[in-house]
């Protein structure tokens, strides 16, 4: 489980570098890059910080990952969690941050 940074989308704003609780992201040739992908905790703080949806979260094969990626987009109070499979098919779960968990 770790992150991959889409180099085409990244604008090098450093917001993810600033927020990562493990200090695990660096700037390389003007773009964000993860230092050690095995050290990612999977908190997704960087996804939430990125305004360009440049960060893709994935599960390692050792915990059941097969290549699906999770991205994140915020529109007002609505948080969109977008799952994209290997075949390009997507599923989105929307969460209204003004509403509580039911459980």
């Amino acid at each position, binding site marked *: 489980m770790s992150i991959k940074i889409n180099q085409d989308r990244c604008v090098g704003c450093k917001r993810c570098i600033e927020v990562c*609780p493990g200090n695990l992201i660096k700037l390389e040739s003007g773009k964000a890059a993860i230092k050690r992908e095995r050290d990612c905790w999977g908190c*997704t703080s960087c996804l939430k910080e990125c305004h360009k949806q440049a960060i893709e979260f994935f599960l390692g094969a*050792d*915990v059941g990952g097969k290549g699906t990626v999770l991205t994140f987009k915020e529109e007002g109070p609505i948080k969109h969690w977008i799952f994209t499979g290997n075949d390009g098919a997507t599923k989105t779960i929307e969460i209204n941050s003004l509403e509580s*968990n039911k*459980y």
Partner: protein
Amino acid sequence: MSKNITVEELNTDVLIIGGGTAGCYGAYILGQNGKHKVIIAEKANIKRSGCLAAGVNAINAYITEGRVPQDYVDYCKNDAKGIVREDLLLSISQGLNEVTKKLEDNGLVILKDENGKYVTRGNRNIKINGENIKPILAEMAKNAPNVEVINHINITDLLVAGNRVHGAVGFDVNKEKAYVIKSKAVLMATGGAAGLYRPNNPGFSRHKMWYPPFNTGAGYAMGINSGAEMTTLEMRFIALRCKDTIAPTGTIAQGVKAKQMNGLGEIYETKYGVVTCERVYGTTVENANGRGPCYLKTDEISSEQEEELYKAYLNMAPSQTLKWIEGGQGPKSQNVEIEGTEPYIVGGHTASGYWVDNDRATTVRGLFAAGDVAGGAPQKYVTGALVEGELAAKGILKQLAEEETETIEVNYQQILDSYNKHLNNDASNISIEQIEEAMQKIMDEYAGGIKKNYQYNEAGLVIAKKLINGLFEVFGKLKANDTDELLQIYELRDRLIVCLSVIEHLNARKETRWHSFAENMSHPNEDKDYALYVNSVKTSEGIKIVKRPLVVDDYKPLKFTFNEDNTINYAGGVVH
């Protein structure tokens, strides 16, 4: 040319080490109530650092309608089989609802019924949207008067002279610069320790653990090195979690009332008892006896419940929802497999940590502790950590009002020398990662890790101690190419120091009171003579065990006293 780290000196009234749950709230209270200058020194960035980075599923420590604070104390005492500090727990319980209200006032969404009352989940829990709880807390701290936040500095050592703290030393994780921060009081709020034992997923996903892998026991290590008394480190926390993602199970167990079921389809959860350690123990025994895998039985939930679980997990542990979606089978069509984690040392769930008095003062004068790093009060969770931040802040305010602190120059050159040594070492064939893996393997095999079903014995602990001590010799030769690697070296140092104290504690409690948490196979039964606290202090002769009598329900809140030369005068009774 040899490297020589640059140094900046800062002065403040209060230094808070760690801007997580307790640290942020402590800063907020200090800012609201005093005129004192406060610095939060944070290893990452307080916006998302610590346990709450991804969010939290519920407020799990709350006094619900019809209940009183003493009920919460009784619950914790029962869960820990009596080894708790009732004075600390009561002071926490009395503040739980007020800190919850403060969070709501600052933007936390809490579910309410048509009468405007909080909707409960179980006896002690209320329902929230906790995804943004950490940014809310960070804003409260940052905007408080007189509070300065310094992100990305890793504090490594306390400045202590004659048992009085005078500040701390650390370095910038992004550039070769050290900070010497002099202060009249220090609040230790670094959190607990993960990564001591080999984790559930030791390969690519080694950091896919429940407790933050970035909580490396720095606060314990700094205290241990400064001679602060620690308590109950042998009461390890082993969480029962969703397999692979190590995501919390409470949302499923409490939310949709899913039962624990073994591989034969039998519900086993009542067979072993239902206190926290017994739930882990039951699962471990079922697996060990060939009746695994174990599950939470979710295959009877509705599609609506499944959708709500997807959302609840995205709000705190997104990898679990990703696993369900990617696997093409959600909890409705497949029971959720569960496993015990590797042991953590975490005072927010068990009673391990600094030995503190009711003001959260430690046995080092001027040093206070709150949250996961403070001992004696298990099940404090998020709101309990907030209350402790508040109580420590008030303890500090009291001290600053009462005492004229003498400014003493404490020599810190040795600390800088240690940074420079690692920055100038020659590269060797032994890496930081190798030593970390060696430490985790030793703890796993000889100090009751996953591989040994959490069991250990005295012969194994002797080996564990010897092997961990052996790692210190190689450790000194590690090379840091920059302060990012220096951070990794110090995180490893902290873990090694904590491991040695944990081993001493495991050995000192010669009974098995808590299955799995402290399963001492040399003494497999509970022993009434061990209805006491096992504490420890590191001295020049090694780690000394101190046994202290329980602070029970007719207690007077414990208050430490110091002699004129700052040595500790009274820190509770002693059992001989």
